[in-house]
């Protein structure tokens, strides 16, 4: 860990200004501190935003405004979330451990870094950590790695469960930028694909601060988060599916899907959702959705199993959501 300066922000504008000046935001620190100890992240200045008033969960035109500092624990336990957006509570509880969720914040969770073994080891070339140095994951151990959206420069995955549920829910990210300028970016547009610039992970500009995540009003139908991993708890997703399905008169009237563990960002494929609309639910239909979803999938030696795994998990998840009575 390199020496660094530490400051507390008294106001959002302080934080944004410090950020514009090159400081790195720290909130729960559950990811940043680990990466600093590993010398993977080397901030020279930290600006601590935990004193800011960003811990509220408030109604937002029928939706929910979640302050950036709301902890994962509090968000998962919130009665409105559990009632109206249960997929989000499920996703949160599928991630990390109780202790980590008590510290981890909503904004920080969105910005957590990849678990790619090679990103986490400074002895390894990594285009994300050290642009232009190469990708050592390609040709290496790739169990955690992407089958969609990757590039020759980077095959890392985004590790968040929460963000997958929020992507499915079409959440918006509220950002305050330079000069106190506020804007909301749909989460589905928030993350960048690696291309040849895998070190650029989001649309955030220097000086931008996430202040809240906005959930739109609840949608009809049933929703669920299904996470498949290498042990029963405390492991990152090999694949995960966040899904909402509304069935009316045996026709799918609404469908939203997002996927984790398979791509550099929470994966959303509008074509796979659109294909379901107006159709009668059936395994054959869900297979076609999986075909569309996986049309461009590419695998390494170590993660080829994710293609059949995702297909099977998607079909089973949708089948379950479309049952008359849930199993």
């Amino acid at each position, binding site marked *: 860990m390199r020496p660094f300066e530490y400051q507390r922000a008294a106001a959002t504008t302080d934080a944004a200004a410090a950020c514009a000046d090159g400081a790195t935001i720290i909130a729960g620190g559950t990811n940043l501190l680990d990466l600093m100890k590993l010398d993977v992240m080397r901030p020279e200045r930290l600006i601590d935003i935990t004193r800011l008033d960003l811990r509220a969960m408030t109604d937002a035109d029928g939706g929910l405004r979640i302050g950036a500092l709301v902890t994962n624990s509090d968000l998962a336990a919130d009665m409105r979330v559990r009632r109206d957006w249960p997929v989000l509570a499920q996703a949160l509880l599928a991630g990390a451990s109780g202790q980590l969720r008590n510290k981890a914040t909503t904004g920080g969770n969105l910005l957590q870094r990849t678990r790619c*073994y090679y990103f986490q080891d400074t002895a390894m070339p990594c285009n994300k950590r050290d642009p232009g140095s190469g990708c050592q994951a390609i040709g290496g*151990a790739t169990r955690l790695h992407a089958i969609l959206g990757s590039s020759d420069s980077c095959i890392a995955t985004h590790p968040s469960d929460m963000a997958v549920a929020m992507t499915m829910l079409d959440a918006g990210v509220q950002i305050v930028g330079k000069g106190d300028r506020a804007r909301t970016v749909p989460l589905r547009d928030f993350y960048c694909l690696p291309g040849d610039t895998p070190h650029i992970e989001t649309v955030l500009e220097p000086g931008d601060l996430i202040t809240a995540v906005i959930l739109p009003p609840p949608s009809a139908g049933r929703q669920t988060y299904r996470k498949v991993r290498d042990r029963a708890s405390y492991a990152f997703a*090999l694949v995960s599916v966040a899904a909402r399905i509304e069935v009316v008169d045996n026709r799918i009237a609404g469908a939203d899907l997002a996927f984790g563990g398979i791509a550099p960002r929470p994966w959303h494929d509008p074509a796979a959702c659109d294909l379901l609309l107006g159709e009668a639910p059936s395994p054959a239909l869900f*297979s076609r959705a*999986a075909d569309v979803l996986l049309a461009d999938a590419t695998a390494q030696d170590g993660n080829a199993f994710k293609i059949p795994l995702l*297909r099977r998990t998607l079909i089973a998840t949708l089948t379950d959501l479309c049952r008359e009575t849930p199993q």
Partner: protein
Amino acid sequence: MTVHHKMDEPDRRNRLDAMVQGIVGTGMDRPDGPDKVTGRATYAHDGQIDGMLHGVMVRSTVAKGRLESMDATAVEALPGVRRVLHGDRFLRNPAQGTANEAPVQGSDDIAYFGQPIALVVADTFEQARHGAQMLHVLYSALLANVTPDGATAEKPEAKQSSTGDLDAAMDAAAHTVDQTYTTPGHNSAAMEPHAAIATWEGDALTVRAACQMLKYNVNELADALGIAPDRVRILSPFVGGGFGSKLGISPETVAAALAARTLERPVAVALSRQQVFEATMRRSETHQRIRLAADAGGRLTGIGHEALVSNLEDEEFSEPVTQATAFLYGGENRVIGHRIARVNRTCAGSVRAPGEAVGVTALEIAMDELAVASGIDPVELRRRNIPDLDPSDDRPFSSHMLRAVLDDAAAAFGWDTPPQGDKRQGEWLKGRGMSSAARVNTIGKSSARVTLNPDGTALVETDMTDIGTGTYAILNQIVAEMLGLPPERVQSRLGDSDLPASAGSGGSWGASSAGSSVFLACEKIRQNIAALCSCEEEALTLKDGTAISDNRQRALTDVLAGTTIVAVGQIEPGKTKKAVRQATFGAFFAEVAINAVTGETRLRRMHGSFAAGRILNAKTARSQCLGGMTFGIGMALTEELIHDPRDGHIVNRDLAEYHLPVNADVPQLTVNLLDERDPWANPIQSKGIGELGICGAGAAIINAIHDATGIRVRDLPATLDKLLPGLEDIDAR
């Protein structure tokens, strides 16, 4: 007053059974428990000393080569950094168990990625870590061999054996199995990372260290430093788990001592979790070909077990995969093979029951395959193959409890009443499986001093360690039993190399070895008390702090009348080691559910029954078995050291990605301990139970997966990707 006993004859006196305090064998709480859960127990790195410096090790980032230069000057200019050290005395490899001399030294010749090559010492840990991360190193890299290759592997003559004609037995057999099983590398993953704090006073060195076997560790450290062993003292009063990884000294101990000598200040060095993975022992991956030949009744006529393992050049240790195959089952035609591939990977050594953990597991999967092939119930198949004599050399067994544990475990699990109804519940496929457990038993030379004070309290002193196993409890219990004292009046001082030398903790021999030495000392003290009571030792009854003889009961303090009695007991292995085959046995039964969509396996319940001679403490023995079974779950389902195919480095070098089973992976586990006395083992008739619980445990789970799905996983662990291709197609196109 020293009493020495060599184990040349079986001891059938069962003296502990003649005692009446009634504390040995009970599930007495650990006396050290409250200190441990309240943070008062001082582990190696807890013993911080005023003015001490901190060292952080730097690793090699090439798999083979030579360290040409490092910019030590730049790092030494950083705030707080005192010195960058490296050189010929630094350890290249950690020491193997009972090595008793320095392991391979010299940090400049690089044999594996992750090898410690330097130590950065600074005023604070953070400054030292920063310095270590900033150290720029130049190597001349050489072509490394990072993948075990059977074609060029060594085949030591002494490790091959063959009896009869296995090929002919296979040809003639009614049922055969000929399969290859693979297990990945494992890390001990003890909770406490390896750490040491070294202090010199003149030419005398004291190191607080995380060590399992102080007697050997002192010699290893002294040899590594080039000083006399009597100048070295190691303190390890508490060890946060070892599982083999702390049998021998590891690099931080020598580095701390060298730095403390150079800088004339105490120096602490703790390995990071990543360094524990890279620079302490790994269990070798194994490649095991197993052949079984059986007649129509399932009686084995042949067993072949040929293993390929790996290690660094210069290392004698190789995972003794076939250790229990020699004696577990009969069969007149036998082949044992052992090959060692030389690789540039982290040093391979003892990890959680070396040999049997992986060897019995593979053999027990093969036995399940034979049960399926022959249509014989797997429990019955094993019963039919229990040998009367050790099939490798016709020696008698000291005791043979396999049939008893199979019967007990089958009854406890309900094996004979299979569940009714559909094997499938929703998405979940249910299955049951079983396996046998076996582990060799041994003792090591071990001494302890017991002092009976005039106030009727007693003190045990030995360099024996408690690595979380319950040594403090069992030694106190033995003394309390033998001297008739309430256990709270007995105290044990452990983990100080200045105390009488014990066998240490490892190879499941600690409790029997140290326990026997304490027993012998107590026998001597009893003779002294008997003399004070003017009776024979056999006629003396000691209970609750009183001495009873000739129908007279007196307070022990009155009998002692101000006398302190001190005795040193020393046990040594003798002729019983070779005269008989000594082993412990067990049986595992498991019920699993496999998700038919994803291939995820969930263990539903698991039972183990074990026989390991006299059980000294029912609670700590059970805990050992629960731990072993939990590691068995890890071996079957989750644990795997992943090596990069290009440079051999361990990529999953933390507890997030090296998947030990977590609470959610471990369902209700039940344990039965069968009471037994093994007179050949030692004077307290106990045998090692520390590792038995893992030896074959994973096979019960793998066999249950087969029962549930029809899929035979032969490449462990059974992660979901290995099950997916065999699961029913759910794609209804």
